[in-house]
């Protein structure tokens, strides 16, 4: 059986209604296989967080469907939703705000077990807590401390341990390392990679740091103004991106190598993101695109295979890997 773990079809999330609705997520379709890591990149306001919140059922979908392991997320409620939450857990961006400062670590970690009493019997909570802490690189004695006694990196480890308590099949990581310093960020990235291998976890890894996404992902999806504009295996998307926006995004990332200064082709985009309440007609990127022609204003480009890069789907009338950086 080769059923995807998560299958998202034509999912939309609009805020407000009618002509002034902000179309934060607009007709998005993708899949995540078991044990696979899908990276999601895009700039502020592109809809990453709205998509994640809709998938986690932290907000309603406007239309479309998202099926996790045979269960329709958008329609789940009550018992079904309770079970769904067990399979799908989240690691938040800010390890300072996402942990209750008044709960000791042992309470923090075991709280999900009190909501799902069949998961781990109460007699084994302590033992399992210690196991989890050790699996994320913390120590048994940390169970008796409060979040304020930990550094940022350690708190993110706690956040990860807590997300793993119910042994989920899908871990949604929303900018899990962007609040951390570079030296500590690498520790958490390595930890996620190890846990993923050990537990065959599928991950949706949302980040704006393209280098981190390249490091952790199997496949990558690029969002712009509520749409997926390019997606494919990481090799294809990083070595032969065909969408002008993906190309610009990658060329804008400063390379930590001073010898390349001035030798790299840099595409500097003009202007800012248009308002998602009033997106451009046709291709949403056309107002900032140097390749735009009249067809771009008239027809919205579909997400299809347009170049020779294996598995790469691009939503652009002028898709061309030649112009890659």
């Amino acid at each position, binding site marked *: 059986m080769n059923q995807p773990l998560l299958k998202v079809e034509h999912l939309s999330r609009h805020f407000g209604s009618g002509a002034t609705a902000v179309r934060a997520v607009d007709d998005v379709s993708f899949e995540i296989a078991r044990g696979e890591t899908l990276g999601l990149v895009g*700039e*502020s306001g592109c809809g990453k967080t709205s998509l994640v919140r809709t998938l986690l059922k932290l907000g309603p979908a406007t239309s479309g469907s998202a099926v996790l392991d045979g269960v329709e997320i958008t329609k789940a409620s009550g018992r079904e939703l309770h079970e769904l939450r067990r399979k799908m857990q989240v690691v938040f961006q800010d390890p300072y705000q996402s942990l209750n400062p008044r709960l000791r670590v042992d309470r923090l970690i075991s709280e999900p077990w009190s909501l799902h009493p069949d998961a781990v019997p109460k007699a084994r909570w302590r033992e399992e807590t210690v196991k989890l802490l050790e699996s994320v690189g913390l120590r048994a004695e940390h169970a008796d401390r409060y979040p304020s006694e930990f*550094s*940022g*990196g*350690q708190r993110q480890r706690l956040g990860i341990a807590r997300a793993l308590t119910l042994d989920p099949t899908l871990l949604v990581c929303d900018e899990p390392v962007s609040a951390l*310093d*570079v*030296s*500590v*960020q*690498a*520790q958490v*990235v*390595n930890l996620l*990679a190890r846990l993923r291998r050990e537990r065959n976890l599928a991950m949706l890894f949302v980040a*704006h740091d*393209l*280098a*981190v996404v*390249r*490091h952790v992902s199997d496949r990558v999806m690029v969002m712009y103004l509520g749409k997926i504009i390019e997606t494919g295996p990481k090799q294809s998307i*990083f070595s032969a991106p065909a969408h002008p926006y993906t190309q*610009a*995004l*990658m*060329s*804008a*990332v*400063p*390379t*930590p*190598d*001073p*010898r*390349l*200064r001035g030798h790299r082709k*840099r595409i*500097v*985009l003009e202007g*800012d*993101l248009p308002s998602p309440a009033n997106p451009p007609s046709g291709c949403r990127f056309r107002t900032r695109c140097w390749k735009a022609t009249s067809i771009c204003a008239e027809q919205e480009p579909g997400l299809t295979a347009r170049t020779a890069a294996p598995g790469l789907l691009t939503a652009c009338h002028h898709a061309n890997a030649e112009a890659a950086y």
Partner: protein
Amino acid sequence: MALLEVKDLQVSFDTASGRIFALNGVSFSLERGEVLALLGESGSGKSVTASAIMDLVPNPPGAIDRGSIRFDGTELLKLSRTARRDLCGSRIALIFQDALAALNPVYPVGWQIAEMYRIHGRNPEGGVEKAVIDLLTAIGIPDPERRARQYPHEFSGGMRQRIMIAMAVALEPDVIIADEPTTALDVTIQAQVVDLLATIRKRSDAGMIFITHDLGVVAELADRVAVMYAGRIVETANVFELFEDARHPYSVGLLASQPRLDTDEDELVPIPGSAPNPVALPSGCAFRTRCPRAEALCAEVIPPLETVGPGRQAACHFPVSPA
């Protein structure tokens, strides 16, 4: 004579958990036309260094305990408050990280840029209004006449950062300090702002101190780099030497822990542990608890910043040997 020379600067803050030494003897110099990057992670003292130069260390709880900051031959720490204020903004300017917090929400941006001229009693040729419009044009704000009358909230994050930059360069300062000016921005917008700073630097012979934690931005913009850790400078080198042949184990670790966009690496090499608590720094070298090269000496003696090659220094008892 260096344009700006900071020597043995120590800054501390009173906090509920004790006195924190944010800077423990920081020394560096900046030449005209040079971009010096202060590179370090949170809490390393980068921004406090900028505050000390700009006379923005809040007192109390903060205090400059000792040291010297000489600008163009004048000792800043001995100047009167008014004399210092005159210098700041006109000859030494600061670009803040958070433009939304740094701009006044109730005045139009043109008015705020013009304030630079008013406060420092300048009368630019052609009038203040023309000078403001020219500045907005120079930093790439379309439709500057109309935009000058708008308020900060009507601009995007990248535009607001450009306006901060316009204010900083308005009086053609000799020293520009940029405190993480691109950190809050998206990469495509960051690229625009980095380009703008590079242009400004080409056009004037001002010295620039660029404060950042981003190795990529350092590689794009800096001539020389001072790496900071726990309130000290642990290594200085020109940008090529630092990236190819770092000597301090912390610099080496920092470079190794960064994932790359242009290659696939099997596993990242993090620095173990986390930055020390500033209330209780380790004895001797503050990095020793995370350092793979640490020996007994490191716990006893604070390594001084010593010359390890032409124009480069490192503060380590056991520096990494040249590549």
